């Protein structure tokens, strides 16, 4: 595993950076938030991303994908993270699409739709009582003559408002937190008994509550073999976590760059505040943390792509480090910006809010430290 971008990845990074520089995503995010837009993203921009092939990245060419991996997705998401771009690439591709692909879903039109960007499929796995444990599933999957009957409530469904379908985790047997007994099901939004409510997040990202009341599904709605749900969920979430870390890396890098810029411009006591050594040292420490985060993100993505034994542990390394580094960066950014950093009018606060939102997605640092310890056998 080499921790460098190859030529193709560099080209991809360049393309993504160009799109981001043309499109003022943060302004769009602010507008969508102020309008209380239910989807929280622009369909046109998302279509443009699909056109650039980004929605196809991590899928095999057999499936109509680009045959690339998490590492390439990370390159794109890092660029998007720089502008806090709200388009649902992570959710539809890394969660929805990858569930369909890894679960070998029979009805190929869904994955096709994800890959060409015409459909959005979201993963609904969290529940009010699950905190960060994906195996905590109270939603029930009752066997019927023709298939399954699903009842339960899912929360924090990323980009869940306006989705075309949901991948829902449900339990046919076992205790609430057991890995055994979980299955994943494809639930089209228009099926009877499905109710979607918009959730408003601090980071202004799209999220939803999904209520399933005796939703009748055919047997073919199940992903993978029976009982494979937990393992499938773990794989999908690991990939999405690495990708989210890349997005966080982009966001923290941008927040940091803006702060360093501000330190050079803002004059107090007759000199730029960046000439104060106490601030310099703090900025240097933030820089080091971001450098470490970058290494961890690159390693996690490449280990996943290579099927490396250490992949899961490296995903936890990356998420623990990115969660803390992003919060540190954002807190220091607001502090160094001073009063203006506390105003809604200034953009830097959006990074702080996103730091919290991203931290609480797929497990915070404390959760991943525990997971890392368990995976390391101590």
């Amino acid at each position, binding site marked *: 595993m080499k921790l460098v971008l190859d030529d193709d990845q560099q080209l991809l990074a360049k393309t993504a950076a160009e799109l981001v520089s043309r499109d003022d995503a943060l302004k769009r995010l602010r507008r969508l938030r102020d309008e209380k837009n239910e989807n929280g993203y622009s369909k046109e921009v998302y279509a443009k991303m699909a056109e650039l092939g980004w929605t196809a990245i991590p899928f095999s060419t057999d499936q109509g994908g680009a045959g690339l991996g998490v590492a390439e997705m990370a390159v794109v998401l890092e660029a998007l993270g720089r502008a806090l771009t709200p388009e649902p690439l992570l959710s539809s591709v890394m969660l929805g699409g990858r569930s369909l692909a890894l679960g070998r879903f029979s009805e190929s039109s869904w994955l096709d739709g994800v890959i060409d960007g015409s459909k959005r499929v979201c993963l609904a796995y969290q529940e009010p009582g699950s905190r960060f444990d994906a195996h905590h599933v109270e939603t029930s999957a009752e066997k019927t003559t023709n298939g399954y009957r699903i009842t339960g409530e899912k929360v924090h469904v990323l980009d869940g408002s306006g989705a075309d379908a949901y991948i829902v985790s449900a339990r046919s047997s076992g205790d609430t937190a057991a890995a055994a007994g979980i299955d994943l099901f494809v639930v089209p939004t228009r099926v009877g008994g499905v109710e979607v409510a918009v959730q408003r997040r601090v980071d202004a990202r799209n999220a939803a509550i999904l209520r399933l009341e005796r939703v009748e599904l055919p047997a073919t709605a199940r992903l993978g073999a029976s009982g494979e749900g937990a393992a499938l969920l773990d794989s999908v979430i690991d990939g999405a976590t690495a990708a989210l870390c890349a997005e966080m890396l982009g966001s923290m890098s941008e927040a940091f760059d803006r702060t360093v810029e501000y330190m050079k411009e803002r004059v107090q006591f007759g000199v730029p505040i960046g000439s104060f050594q106490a601030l310099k040292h703090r900025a240097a420490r933030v820089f080091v943390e971001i450098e470490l985060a970058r290494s961890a993100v690159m390693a996690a993505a490449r280990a996943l792509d290579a099927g490396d034994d250490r992949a899961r542990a490296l995903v936890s390394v990356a998420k623990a480090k990115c969660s803390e580094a992003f919060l540190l960066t954002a807190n220091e950014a607001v*502090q160094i910006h001073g009063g203006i950093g506390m105003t809604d009018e200034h953009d830097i606060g959006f990074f702080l*809010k996103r730091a919290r939102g991203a931290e609480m997605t797929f497990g915070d640092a404390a959760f991943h430290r525990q997971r890392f310890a368990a995976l390391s056998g101590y």
Partner: protein
Amino acid sequence: MSDLESFRAETRSWLEKNAPSELRQKATDPDAIVWGGRRPTYVYPQSKRWLDVMRERGWTAPTWPKEYGGGGLSKVEAKVLAEEIFRLEMPPPLYGFGLQMIGPTLLQYGTEEQRTEHIPRIVRGEIRWCQGYSEPNAGSDLASLQTRAVRDGDHFVVNGQKVWTSYGNFSDWMFLLVRTDPDVKKQSGITFILLDLETEGVSVKPIKLISGASPFCETFFQDVRISVENVVSEINAGWTVAKALLGHERSMIGSVFGAGRRAKKRTDVLVETARRTLGEREGRIQDDVQRDRVAELLIDQACFELTVQRSHDGAKAGQKPGPESSIFKVYGTELNQRRHEAMQSMRGPSAVGWEGPGFSEEDLQQTRDWLRSRGNTIEGGTSEVQLNIIAKRVLGLPD
């Protein structure tokens, strides 16, 4: 029975009769705070009665001289009064920058005319005051302020802008710093002046914060005319007045995070949040890692409260005040931030809520409080400025 004992007995019976029972137990309820002013608001209707009976006795400002409408109490009597109010858990009858900041400043630096005009109205809560210090380019470096005041006969003509005026949009008068001499050392050309915000040329605009609230304003001055009679202390001597007031502000902000009931409430909220979000077994927080963090925070909280107490005890024993205000400011605000960060961690995914559905009122409020807490280390003198002050004034480290 000593005089003090009889004062306590009388006070107690008077309070029993006059303190509206509906407000009892509401000592820490933010809705029970009364700011007064020309357009006063009362969330609880009884708050008006409570203010009325108290201000009649001058007990909104118990130690201020009777001649200006104050209570004229000695420090020990005022302490007895505070204890008796505390016993009923009554909120203060009146609160604000008038009582806390400009009132004491006028008693120290004001002319007889200024005292006669302003102090009684502060005591009675008829005028709500706000502070005009910071400017867009004068934050930590406050003395570099640029709002100009040019003399024109018996008036100053003021042009410029102030920011971070707390509740400027609800206030009637502002005390502000203006530059009256641009040609001398920056600290030497500043004047402290009083301004009725209804004067022509003043406009006020709320600033929305990242927490969603707008407790601060920007204030703009366009050819605003202020009589020179409103200068406090001498022209060009405003920096001395301002510094006295700033020290006061620091201890106010610091002590808000310090001892007393609010601290107790904060402690309880932290422990309750831990139990609620992480689970408990016979009251014990289940997650040992977070329990350790709670204990660390509450040990620091205890040390901080004890330091506030030590400072008060020292002052009572006649010790010269030390660097307390800077210590309290830097530590109290950071401790509050650490507490909020810890609670965000405990709350996990629930910490990302901004509006319902799917999040409890408590969750939503905690998220906004967390965001608001990030400003604590900026407002009222940044942590960096406080650390500079400690390094210079206490440790005597060279520039």
